[in-house]
């Protein structure tokens, strides 16, 4: 019996478990998934919780329900990976051996990395919306808030879903408008980037949206600390932004087990071959989803596109052939822009998000890098697609490789 070991039962790990469970011979391969928690969260849903659009119970389900019956699921933390001995040591010290390892341990927020952020007032005037607790607490707080200066602060890149902070602000604009207190709320984005987004065309379009919605942007702000007494964030160059309500997107880091194993970079992300998805220098260790250090978005769509490539490469690898399928960095994200509308962006390592139309047989086309109602419905419908098709590894009418069809090149 050979062992296929998957670390992490989130979006990436669950898709791979489903694909491999149907492809690998049950008498030859045992497929194991290890995760430290029972609940599988639909993470794009966190954004909607603070505004009362989703409740937490709408976006969490038992992990096991999405893993096929033949999967050996182990509920446990992970201490470390030993690539020499080809074993993984669980939190209780028990070793698991592997013939092929898939690291899908994701990323998490680390507010303690910013001086003064996590200690006082965390959960009182300073919140996150990237965790179940954070999103719920922020929702409770917003209900009773009568206005003031709301600052969304991005600590450092990379972050999970780089458009989520913008979507938060667009939805906040709508939320306070509906409550009749938009004129009492000052919305700010404070970012280490030079603009709203990392790529030029998209940056221009989203930057215009922010201006139109009366949202102030402070770019090039590298946060050094939070001054809890004065209620302000302070940058390394001593510039300051004051707040009444701080919505923080803290430093994102890979799982601590990656650091303990000596497999990560300075943020515990695993250096990964950007095409084959093998951990650098390790033929039998594959990495996907948020756990990699790849220069593409940390997003569920990326994990999905990677899973198609990874599946081919793993099948080649276990048959003793070199991995030949190549990931192109493809990402595809709906962006909620508020008031029942949304945008769609589609890009890869080489091609920035461009305007145009995104063809999707039977449903689309969706408008690219422009606002429309159907994009909003696409985003809301996606929760169903996620639970019923995506996680189960069902073939979707979308290619892993990005296509230029419908995209308009910029002058």
């Amino acid at each position, binding site marked *: 019996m050979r062992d296929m070991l998957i670390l992490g039962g989130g979006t990436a790990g669950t898709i791979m478990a489903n694909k491999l469970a149907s492809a690998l011979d049950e008498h030859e391969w045992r497929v194991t998934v290890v995760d430290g928690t029972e609940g599988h969260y639909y993470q794009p849903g966190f954004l909607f919780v603070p505004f009362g659009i989703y409740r937490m119970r709408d976006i969490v389900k038992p992990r096991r329900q999405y893993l096929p019956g033949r999967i050996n699921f182990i509920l446990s933390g992970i201490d470390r990976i030993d690539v020499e001995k080809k074993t993984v040591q669980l939190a209780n010290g028990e070793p698991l051996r592997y013939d092929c390892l898939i690291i899908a341990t994701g990323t998490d927020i680390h507010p303690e990395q910013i001086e003064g952020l996590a200690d006082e007032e965390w959960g009182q005037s300073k919140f996150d919306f990237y965790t179940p607790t954070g999103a719920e607490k922020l929702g409770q707080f917003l209900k009773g808030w009568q206005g003031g200066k709301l600052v969304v602060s991005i600590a450092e890149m990379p972050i999970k879903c780089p458009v989520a902070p913008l979507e938060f602000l667009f939805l906040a604009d709508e939320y306070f408008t509906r409550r009749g207190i938009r004129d009492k709320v000052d919305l700010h984005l404070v970012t280490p980037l030079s603009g709203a987004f990392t790529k030029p065309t998209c940056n221009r379009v989203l930057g215009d949206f922010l201006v139109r919605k009366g949202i102030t942007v402070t770019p*090039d702000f590298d946060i050094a600390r939070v001054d809890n007494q004065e209620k302000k964030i302070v940058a390394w160059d001593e510039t300051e932004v004051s707040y009444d309500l701080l919505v923080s997107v803290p430093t994102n880091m890979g799982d601590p087990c990656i650091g303990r194993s000596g497999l990560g970079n300075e943020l515990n992300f695993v250096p990964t071959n950007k095409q084959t998805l093998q951990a650098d220098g390790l033929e039998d260790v594959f990495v996907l989803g948020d756990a990699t250090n790849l220069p593409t978005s940390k997003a569920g769509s990326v994990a999905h596109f990677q899973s198609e490539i990874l599946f081919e490469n793993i099948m080649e690898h276990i048959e003793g052939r070199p991995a030949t399928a190549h990931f192109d960095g493809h990402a595809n994200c709906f962006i909620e822009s508020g008031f029942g509308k949304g945008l769609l962006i589609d890009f890869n390592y080489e091609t920035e998000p461009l305007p145009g139309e995104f063809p999707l047989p039977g449903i689309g086309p969706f408008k690219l890098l422009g606002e429309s109602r159907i994009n909003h419905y696409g985003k809301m419908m996606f929760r169903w697609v996620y639970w019923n098709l995506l996680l189960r590894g069902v073939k979707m009418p979308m290619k892993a490789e990005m296509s230029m069809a419908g995209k308009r090149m910029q002058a």
Partner: protein
Amino acid sequence: MAPMSFAGKTIELDADGNLANRGDWSDDLARELAAQDGIAELTPQHWAVINFMRTVFEKDGDAPSIRRLTKESGVDTKMLYALFPKGPAKRAAKIAGLPKPKGCI
């Protein structure tokens, strides 16, 4: 971006305004790039950071993030911002003749 001329040579720049060809880089060009960016003099500490960035790039194919600079170059974050105000990783990469660090997507 439009090329620059330096010491009688045309130097090609990429879309971010960083050197298109790393082979064009020299200590003198670094001083010129720094001056254009408002850094009048490159002190030994500046050079320590620049050389560290070039070594990492040789090895990994990408310039290091601020976090890695702090952890491994021996220069703390506060000092990095004093040496290269407004984004040390980006500015030091430019002066070191490297492309903008990929870290932020």
